[in-house]
């Protein structure tokens, strides 16, 4: 449904989006991740035709967004960043306007507004002015606007921003449900949302795609993936670490905590472990007792950090140098 081909956007000297290519099919929910300023919103604005691309093309449902903007936009529902809405209108008036400009007749509008109001739980504020709404309601009002015409394609820029945990949950459920029949792309920097709602995720950094895959695939990129955390008693830390490192499947082991009652350690596998690490550790347990043992799944936030901040280590080094300069 959405095809983004070699898309680039240059603002002055700054490359906001640097030749990215991806596509989203019907039935997919694509999570769009990246640090602030990575180019997420710019990409979404180009997909919806708000800003023209500097290079490359976007097609939505087969219509090029630049050459056939009206046909393409008809298929899209868009929730811009910060969920803007006309503050001088009531919620009902605003949704009715959104339906009318999408070309719906009187009866269709009524049905569409009712449906959107129900899906977004806007009943209590229906005749309130948008200006007086709390942030959560305002956000959902704009969200309701984006689904008013039951579009095939949904582009949502931070749809859960500013919502309370319950509302976040509802919106994720909604996205997930709607994702079965639509092509959805949504941006976020809350990583748990990727697990909760996405069938696939893209991480972009400085305008480039740095990772693309299902949440599981991304998680496997973590160096934690397949790592084993264990707590044992009857042995001291140094000996344990020494023994663990001698196992052929172990890359390295770190002692996290050493107490009188036991030692907690984390063991990282060689070549991703294949899930055998835990059993080989259990087999090697002689002279000490395993109190607890489990395999880590890999963590998205760690993958996210390691991908989007590869030079963290270098920067840390610099930061350490600076105080020395001050002292001297």
């Amino acid at each position, binding site marked *: 449904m959405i095809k983004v081909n070699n898309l680039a*956007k240059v*603002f*002055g000297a700054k490359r906001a989006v640097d030749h990215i290519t991806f596509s989203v099919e019907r039935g997919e929910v694509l999570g769009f991740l990246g640090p602030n300023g990575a180019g997420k919103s710019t990409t979404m*604005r180009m997909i*919806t*035709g*708000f*800003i*023209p691309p500097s290079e490359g093309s976007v097609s939505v449902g087969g219509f090029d967004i630049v050459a056939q*903007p*009206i*046909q393409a*936009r*008809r298929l*899209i529902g*868009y929730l*811009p*960043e*910060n969920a*803007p*809405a*006309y*503050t*001088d*209108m009531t919620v009902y*008036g605003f949704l009715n*306007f*959104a339906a*009318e*400009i*999408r*070309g719906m007749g009187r009866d269709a509008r009524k049905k569409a507004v009712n449906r959107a109001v129900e899906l977004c739980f806007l009943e209590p504020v229906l005749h309130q*002015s948008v200006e007086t709404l709390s942030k959560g309601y305002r956000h959902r009002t*704009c969200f309701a*606007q984006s689904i008013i015409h039951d579009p095939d394609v949904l582009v949502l820029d931070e749809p859960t921003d500013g919502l309370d945990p319950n509302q976040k949950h509802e919106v994720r459920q909604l996205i997930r449900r709607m994702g079965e029949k639509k092509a959805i792309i949504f941006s976020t920097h809350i990583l748990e949302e990727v697990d909760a709602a996405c069938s696939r995720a893209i991480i972009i950094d400085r305008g480039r795609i740095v990772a693309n895959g299902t949440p599981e695939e991304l998680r496997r990129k973590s160096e934690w993936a397949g790592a084993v955390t264990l707590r044992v008693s009857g042995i001291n830390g140094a000996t344990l670490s020494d023994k663990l490192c001698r196992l052929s499947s172990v890359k390295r082991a770190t002692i996290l905590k050493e107490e009188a009652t036991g030692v907690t350690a984390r063991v990282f596998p060689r070549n991703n472990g294949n899930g055998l690490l835990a059993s080989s550790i259990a087999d090697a347990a002689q002279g000490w007792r395993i109190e607890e043992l489990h395999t880590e799944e890999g963590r998205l936030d760690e993958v996210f950090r390691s991908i989007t901040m590869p030079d963290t280590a270098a920067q840390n080094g610099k930061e350490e140098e600076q105080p020395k300069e001050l002292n001297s």
Partner: protein
Amino acid sequence: MNPWRNIWTITKRELGAYFSSPIAYVFIVIFLLLSGFFTFSAYLGKFFERREASLGSFFIWHPWFYLFLVPAVGMRLWAEERRVGTIELLLTMPITAWQAIVGKFLASWLFLALALFLTFPLWITVNILGHPDNGVILSGYIGSWMMAGAYLAVSCITSALTRSQVVSFIISLIACLFLILAGYPPVTNMIDWPWLVNLVSSFSVMTHFDGFQRGVLDVRDVIFFVSVIGFSLFTTSVILRTHRAG
């Protein structure tokens, strides 16, 4: 789909926006008070002192009223959309930028027509007191409305330039002032060459409103106002496009 349907949808929304805030009512009251005061004042319009059955003392002030009032009506059109961010919604709807521009312009223009219409007690007054040429009065109203449209279209440009309504108001006031001064006798008298006077004053709303006030409907005057409106709306579309292109 029918483009006028989209334009009308936008126009309805904008008109609703005017009347959902006190701005519309404040504007209309100020407009009516000012026009009443200027028309009847013994110092300014001298409606009674003139001892003639016409609304000449009413229309003559319009270029100056509009200088302040029309930018106040037009300043929010695009500046507010940009400030709140709704421009991103509006321009990603399945409508063209032109339809949005024309729809918004029409809404404000209709609003000004309403304000102008509400001065009808003046017309009643002058008809009770004497026997005016109602054709001249009608032509005055038409000319006044066209002139308001020209000012308004200039305000559209300035409104699209900024996200601050105040900045938009000030710039469009200055731009409209030029439209007046180019044909204002104290200014044109400073120019020595007659051909230059003609050239400069042909850009002024004063010159082209003059015929309407006297009841002369000249096609050239109509073309002038229509082309100012057309050109300004085109400029607005260019500004909106470049703004989005970054």
